[in-house]
């Protein structure tokens, strides 16, 4: 208690003496970055938890790509459960002459069995709870659709072959609860109206859901009774396994943003290390005197540790508050990608953020402070004893260990944390090496420049270690911003350039066999010839060489998905022009061929399938087994319909097929689209441009959010700069005084400071551009597979950003040097 008081007093004194500002600042930045991410992901977590029960709008759902069998329905009724149906499918709707891709959901009377449906009489009006979905003959739509089409409640909406009045605005739909990316707005209609729209035909892509709800025993009994009788296309979804893709997405986001925040923590840690070292050095004398007057080593330690703990708590609390404010920006950027409004954040993430702050302080700040213990009381007699040379690197093993532990905690995944740590360490070593080389180079340059520059460069070269640390810390901050900003747009541009100008921009799916010819004629007449019409049959892969396919047995997530979902099988006499057979041989086009299959190389590789392997598919309840006889590469960039799996003509004649095609339509010719939808109501039009725009928007938002998190890194980099400047403040004051004594005018001193910081910044910017280019190159060449174009703007902007930003920041924090009275040189002891 007595120590606490003393520590508090010391804290107050050190604070007003300006000793702790940088330490506190670095802590605030690191806690704020962790807290902002924590608060944000917590809000999304809360939405998901709260909606978990509602997420299904039922207690259990049978999900299927075909209408749910009557046997299952009968079992539900036997078990005394309430049931309801919903069918969802994509369709382009018409309002006057405007078209829009929507996600139509048709629901039966019982919907929703759980949760609430809410609507409003017009845009932005007060909501009310609806006990059931829309009555027959009406549709309810999401506000987004009204806004895009520029219509209001009361207007007519053509859905397939039938027009419906829009009677209400759909504001909340329980089982939509958390779709991560909302590409097409919702149209909700009554299930009994579906036949009139003619949209659902054999082979159409529809998600059928049979929802059940009731006593939990009854639900369990039902679950047990149907588990064995479900067909290949049917799947049970309970509360626990609802939206697995969403959970995965959230976990990924949390991991990624969490790790991004850790970068700030590490950079802030460097600032803490610098500041703590200065703090300890400045307390040598105080400790010597305390020891001289009888304080034990333990007491000295206790006092300083208490002081640090108090500082850590206070700065941590400020960081939490800032993080709380900052997360609202993050929620603003990303929030409306998630359906439903976000609840206010809980206070849960505050504690981990505080702990991270304290651990950072411990890991990076403690080593020099612990060594205060060893200060000798003899220092009161002679200044040159009892201190220590700059600490050994070993002390910072604690910091490395803590950072590693924090990374593992953030990633919740040892392997991922290992990869990130390894990558980070390699990057750091590389960046440090480059920074060191650049700093060495500066030393050679200085003979050739004027006094202000020479002095600035000389300072960089003399404080080599500190300069390298600053360049790397700042470079890291600038690098992530450059990488996310410029490299992203460069990659998108490179990718867009790789797509031909007149590539098909519309896909038509769900074309019925009898519509194939009329559609071909229709498109040819409108001057938008199709790229060919292809049949498509959906089937599920059931066995490979007689062994049942188990999605869970694949490590590769892509393979897992492929094994799980339905395949689109097609038939053709000849390979498409953008396909190339690389292994095996294609069947003879002139003669009827045995059933066999040609696979795309990528999918074959993912699933580990080779020539001669036998694949069994279940199509509409019947099995078909075929050998793999050829492997093809496919150029997906052509935007033509293409298939992973193609069979010879005649192999699939017994199964219902729909057709698919794509064509190019200039943006201005929307009339053609309207005519198309009117003439072929059951055909689904997918506007690739619109989908791409949406995807782009999503990417932009995600990147913006990530960038935002990395702004903390840049701020942390600036704190490192500030800490480094602080550490050299006394020297700088003295140097300023010497310069002025020798007749240096203000502008000379200003210029030398600017020269030093602008050079440091330019080096950091160059380093950042180097790192970002390397990253862009790696991503472009190796991940996305198209050439990355080196962007001179990146280097220019990086250097300018660094030189300008750091020059200004450095000058701001050192400008007191300008006011250092020349008489200082007379007072300073050597």
């Amino acid at each position: 208690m007595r120590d606490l008081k003393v520590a508090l007093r010391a804290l107050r004194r050190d604070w007003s003496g300006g000793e702790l500002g940088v330490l506190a600042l670095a802590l605030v930045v690191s806690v704020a970055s962790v807290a902002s991410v924590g608060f944000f992901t917590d809000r999304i977590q809360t939405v998901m938890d709260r909606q978990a029960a509602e997420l299904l709008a039922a207690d259990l759902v049978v999900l299927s790509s075909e209408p749910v069998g009557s046997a299952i329905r009968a079992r539900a009724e036997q078990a005394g459960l309430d049931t309801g149906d919903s069918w969802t499918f994509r369709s382009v709707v018409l309002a006057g002459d405007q078209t829009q891709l929507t996600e139509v959901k048709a629901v039966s009377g019982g919907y929703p069995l759980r949760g609430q449906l809410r609507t409003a009489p017009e845009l932005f009006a007060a909501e009310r709870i609806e006990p059931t979905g829309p009555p027959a003959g009406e549709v309810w739509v999401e506000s987004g659709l009204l806004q895009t089409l520029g219509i209001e409640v009361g207007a007519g909406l053509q859905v397939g072959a039938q027009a419906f009045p829009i009677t209400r605005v759909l504001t909340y739909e329980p089982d939509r609860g958390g779709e991560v990316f909302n590409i097409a707005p919702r149209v909700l209609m009554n299930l009994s109206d579906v036949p009139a729209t003619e949209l659902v035909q054999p082979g159409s892509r529809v998600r059928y859901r049979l929802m059940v709800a009731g006593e939990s025993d009854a639900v369990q009994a039902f679950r047990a009774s149907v588990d064995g009788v479900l067909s290949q296309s049917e799947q049970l979804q309970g509360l626990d396994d609802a939206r697995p893709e969403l959970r995965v997405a959230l976990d990924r986001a949390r991991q990624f943003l969490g790790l991004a925040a850790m970068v700030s923590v590490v950079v802030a840690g460097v600032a803490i290390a610098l500041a703590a070292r200065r703090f300890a050095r400045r307390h040598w004398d105080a400790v010597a005197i305390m020891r001289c007057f009888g304080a034990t080593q333990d007491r000295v330690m206790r006092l300083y540790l208490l002081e640090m703990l108090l500082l850590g708590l206070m700065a941590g609390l400020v960081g939490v508050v800032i993080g709380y404010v900052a997360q609202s920006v993050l929620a603003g950027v990303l929030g409306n990608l998630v359906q439903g409004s976000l609840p206010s954040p809980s206070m849960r993430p505050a504690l981990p953020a505080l702990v991270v702050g304290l651990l950072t302080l411990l890991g990076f700040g403690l080593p020099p402070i612990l060594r205060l213990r060893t200060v000798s009381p003899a220092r009161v007699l002679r200044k040159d004893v009892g201190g220590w040379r700059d600490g050994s690197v070993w002390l910072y093993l604690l910091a490395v260990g803590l950072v590693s532990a924090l990374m593992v905690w953030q990633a919740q995944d040892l392997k991922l944390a290992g990869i990130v740590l390894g990558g980070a360490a390699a990057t750091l070593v590389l960046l440090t090496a480059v920074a060191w080389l650049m700093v060495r180079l500066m030393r050679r340059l200085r003979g050739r420049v004027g006094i202000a520059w020479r002095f600035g460069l000389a300072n960089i070269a003399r404080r080599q270690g500190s300069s390298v640390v600053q360049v790397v810390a700042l470079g890291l901050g600038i690098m992530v911003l450059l990488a996310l900003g410029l490299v992203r747009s460069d990659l998108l541009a490179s990718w867009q350039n790789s797509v031909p100008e007149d590539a098909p921009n519309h896909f038509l799916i769900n074309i019925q066999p009898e519509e194939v010819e009329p559609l071909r004629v229709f498109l040819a007449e409108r001057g938008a010839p199709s790229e060919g019409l292809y049949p498509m049959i959906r089937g599920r892969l059931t066995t490979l060489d007689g062994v049942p396919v188990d999605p869970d047995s694949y490590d590769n997530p892509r393979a897992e998905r492929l094994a799980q979902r339905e395949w689109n099988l097609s038939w053709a006499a000849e390979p498409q022009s953008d396909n190339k057979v690389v292994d095996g041989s294609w069947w003879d086009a002139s003669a009827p061929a045995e059933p066999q299959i040609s696979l795309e190389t990528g999918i074959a590789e993912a699933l580990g399938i080779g020539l001669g392997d036998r694949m069994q598919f279940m199509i509409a309840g019947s099995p078909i087994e075929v050998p793999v006889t050829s492997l093809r590469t496919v150029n997906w960039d052509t935007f033509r319909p293409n298939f992973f799996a193609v069979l010879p003509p005649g192999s699939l004649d017994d199964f219902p097929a729909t057709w698919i095609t794509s064509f190019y339509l200039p943006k201005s010719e929307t009339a053609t689209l309207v005519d198309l939808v009117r003439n072929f109501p059951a055909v689904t039009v997918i506007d690739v441009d619109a989908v791409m725009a949406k995807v782009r928007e999503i990417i932009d938002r995600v990147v913006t959010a990530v960038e935002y998190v990395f702004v903390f890194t840049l701020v942390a980099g600036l704190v490192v700069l500030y800490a480094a400047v602080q550490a050299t403040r006394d020297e700088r004051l003295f140097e300023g005084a010497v310069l002025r004594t020798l007749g240096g005018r203000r502008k000379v001193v200003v210029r030398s400071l600017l020269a030093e910081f602008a050079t440091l910044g330019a080096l950091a910017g160059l380093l950042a551009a180097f790192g970002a280019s390397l990253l862009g190159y790696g991503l472009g060449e190796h991940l996305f597979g198209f050439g990355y174009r080196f962007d001179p703007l990146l280097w220019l902007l990086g250097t300018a950003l660094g030189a300008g930003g750091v020059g200004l920041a450095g000058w701001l924090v050192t400008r007191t040097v300008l006011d250092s009275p020349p008489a200082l040189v007379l007072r300073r002891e050597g």
Partner: protein
Amino acid sequence: MTQFQPMPIVQAEQLGKRVKSPDGDLIILDSVELSVAQGESVAIVGASGSGKSTLLGLLAGLDRPSEGRVQLCGVDLGSLDEDGLAGLRAERVGFVFQSFQLLPSLTALENVMLPLEMAERTDVAATASEVLGRVGLSKRARHYPNQLSGGEQQRVAIARAFATGPEVLFADEPTGNLDRRTGQTVIELLFSLNQERGTTLILVTHDVGLAELCSRRLELEDGRLSLESVDA
């Protein structure tokens, strides 16, 4: 008839300096009157805390007086702003300090170049080299201060002080941080250069031997000039 007197190069009138302290103003210098003629060498002596260094700082325009005024090279220092003072120092004043005050990031040669560059002279490197040669350190030109001994550092400082050919040279305890023998060498160098270049020398010291070498000695006691002795 007044006797012809050379124009004083440094002149202080009613010079005083006070600083604030918890017990009210603390008087460091009080009504100092002083006039130094061109070419003179003057030693200011006195006990620690007598205000020697403060007086030196005021005379050289490194600090501002609380009252009174200083004329340096015919210019009233009170009429100049900080940059004006810096300009005056760059052109006409040199300094040697007890703790050398070399800039650690610059080599010996670069340290000597510094005042020449401040004064925007031409041929900076050649001039600096020559002066460095004069103090016998040509071979050490590329060394950094921390690679030089104390005596060498002070010789660099002397080269730096004389590089611009100043009219007045202020020296603050120039031998204070050196052992006797090294100090002796430095003093000899200082005085020989002083005579060679006709510089006015004002130095602060409590080294009696050093003070004896000056043509005039002023003793400060509690902020006042108490005694003045002149060589015959």
